[in-house]
């Protein structure tokens, strides 16, 4: 755990408590069965807004707290532990884009609402199934045209932060915007969003696009950290109570060493994730490297832990009744979101000149 200030400690504990009391994995299962059109529970989102979490990276003058990305990551990590569903990550990072490049009018129009959890925002960046491909969406006369694939929280977004070939744009839902939901293995909101001459305000050039994608990536690794830590601890608890050959499984050295190995990787993952969030808050010039390090390590570690969770639970790990499969499925989606491990390893090396 990074060195936290008093607000951060409070924030983390509050988020952990809320996730445990109000949003355990049973809440995710209920939502999965109810399948609301927007992809999230409106009541829970309102509560998140009231608790101020959606305003953590929004300045105080617009109703936020400006605590920063490490703080946002702490909250997202706690929610990730229980697979809590909300448009918090996408809204917060999209709000950052408005803070960094929006006109006064857009800031007035959107930031207070986003900080209060009264509106949902999201990023629309990728145009194919793999992050890092060409961006061809284009803008002419203030109108944006192009199709974005697998937009997280696309079903419920009130406003989109959209990457075009020449930079980043703000596009409200409505005129010229059509949303086609995609049913994915993690049962979260993902949608293909088609923009046809949609009114767009320019937020910045491709540098801003990259800065915002890096922020989204870092926040995603925080969710992955919460998931990995929780999946690991659930597996550990299971090994301590499941009896075979007259012994609890946790007494078998082969399993002890697999758990020790995972614990070791988890320590490295936490350092890399917190390092990326701290780099953003500190405005460091090597945020790109820190983020690629975090995502590559997070991908490898969460993949290891989520796959081992199924294996070590054994047969019941294959059943829908147990949670192992839920972690496995969300993990696979997040491994792809904002770049695979190999994408980030290649980027890290290029940034380092080899």
């Amino acid at each position: 755990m990074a060195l936290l200030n008093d607000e951060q400690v409070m924030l983390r504990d509050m988020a952990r408590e809320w996730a445990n009391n109000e949003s355990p994995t049973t809440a995710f299962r209920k939502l999965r069965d109810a399948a609301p059109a927007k992809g999230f529970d409106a009541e829970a989102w309102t509560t998140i807004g009231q608790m101020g979490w959606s305003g953590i990276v929004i300045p105080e003058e617009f109703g936020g707290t400006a605590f920063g990305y490490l703080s946002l990551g702490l909250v997202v990590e706690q929610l990730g532990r229980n697979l809590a569903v909300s448009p918090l990550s996408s809204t917060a990072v999209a709000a950052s884009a408005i803070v960094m490049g929006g006109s006064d009018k857009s800031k007035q129009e959107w930031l207070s609402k986003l900080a209060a959890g009264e509106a949902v925002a999201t990023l629309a960046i990728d145009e194919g199934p793999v992050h890092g491909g060409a961006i061809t969406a284009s803008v002419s006369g203030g109108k944006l045209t192009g199709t974005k694939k697998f937009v997280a929280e696309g079903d419920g977004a009130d406003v989109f932060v959209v990457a075009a070939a020449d930079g980043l744009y703000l596009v409200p839902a409505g005129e010229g915007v059509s949303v086609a939901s995609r049913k994915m293995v993690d049962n979260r909101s993902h949608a293909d969003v088609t923009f046809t001459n949609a009114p767009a305000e320019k937020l910045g050039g491709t540098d801003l696009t990259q800065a915002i994608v890096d922020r989204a990536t870092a926040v995603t690794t925080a969710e992955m950290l919460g998931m990995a830590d929780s999946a690991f601890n659930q597996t550990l608890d299971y090994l301590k109570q499941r009896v075979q050959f007259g012994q609890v499984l946790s007494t078998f050295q082969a399993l002890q060493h697999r758990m020790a190995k995972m614990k070791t990787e988890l320590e490295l993952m936490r350092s890399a994730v917190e390092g990326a969030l701290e780099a953003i808050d500190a405005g460091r010039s090597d945020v790109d490297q820190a983020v690629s390090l975090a995502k590559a390590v997070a991908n490898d570690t969460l993949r290891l832990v989520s796959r081992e969770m199924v294996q070590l639970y054994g047969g019941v790990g294959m059943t829908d009744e147990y949670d192992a499969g839920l972690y496995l499925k969300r993990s696979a989606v997040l491994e792809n979101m904002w770049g695979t491990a190999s994408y980030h390893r290649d980027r890290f090396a290029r940034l380092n000149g080899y």
Partner: protein
Amino acid sequence: MATAAELDRSADSADGFRQEARAWLEANFPLSLRGKDNAMSAVDGPTDETPDQKAWREAMGAKGWGVPTWPKEYGGGGLTREQARLLGEEMMRIGAWNPIGGMGVMMFGPTLLEYGNEQQKQQHIPGIVKGEVRWCQGYSEPGAGSDLASLQTFAEDKGDHYIVNGQKTWTSGGQWADKCFALVRTDKTQKHAGISFLLIDMDAEGVETRPIKLISGASPFCETFFSNVKVPKENLVGREGQGWEIGTRLLQHERNSLSGGGGSQGRMNQGEQIPSIAKKYRELDESGKLADSDLRTRIIKHEMDQRAFALTLRRAALEAKGNAGPSAATSVMKNVGARITQDRAELAIEIMGMQGLGWEGEGFSQEEIAQTRTWLWGKAVSIYGGSSEIQNNVIAKRILGMLDHQ
């Protein structure tokens, strides 16, 4: 966990200490020694000190800053962890290095400060602080490696002294050491509870050392034989039978220093960075990437591993503020540190091909020979100080609470 508010309060005094440290270092560190750390003498054996080296060791010894956080009453620096960190930064800034080292500093000193009586601390700590007395470790035996508690070296009670008989092995620097801290058996009827922690003079009659030649060509370890060695009772640390507890605590200090928690991080990994070696020995494609894409991927994984480890050491240091000494988490660090050291060495020689496998003579640069030797020596790091398998046992049992067979 320290809060930011607590740190703010200490910021003013920290600034003052930084100035003090900077002034003292500038007055005392001989610039001729800049960057010429002789810390590897633990492996290569002691070399004759130059006048500047001697002066620097004596200055740091008198100031106590070679062991900055040890108590002043025994000659230590008496600094807080934060001040010690600032001192380290100031030393790095001017290329100064710590001339006070070895097992006395890394392992025995911290343990004696915890478990020794007043007379023992007064007698032994100042010699370590000044870098005048070399200590070696008498733990492993031919039949007691990972299963250390099965050790057989016996100290027979003769009233006011013990008579010690037995054989130790893997005694690092035994041939150059003045004194040995040893685990010996004082009771043959109990396994762990029959072990005691005893201090033995290496020049006492009946002590013999034989260097062991390693695959790297160096001989940093000895076999040590004790034949009817007389050891006064005042050299017993703690109680009879408390040796296992004390010895285990000492191993935590050892892991802490081996993993880099003690500030020695990177010593094994010093030198040219792997990507830079690769660019020198291997082809690049037209976009400037290493042409061997499989090798490139493995280099990146290693570099990321190393970066994440450095962040973890930093995080552990921040979290350790106010905590008492190293914990079982040092086992996590030791295993990652060993993995990174060995991966680095394997990558270095793989990149260089046959040129990375030279033993000596014409046709190989000094750096190339050093890479070969470092690679071979590096195989020890996942074995000594408790093998990686033993560390995994520690992680599973002490951190994760996974129990033994009942």
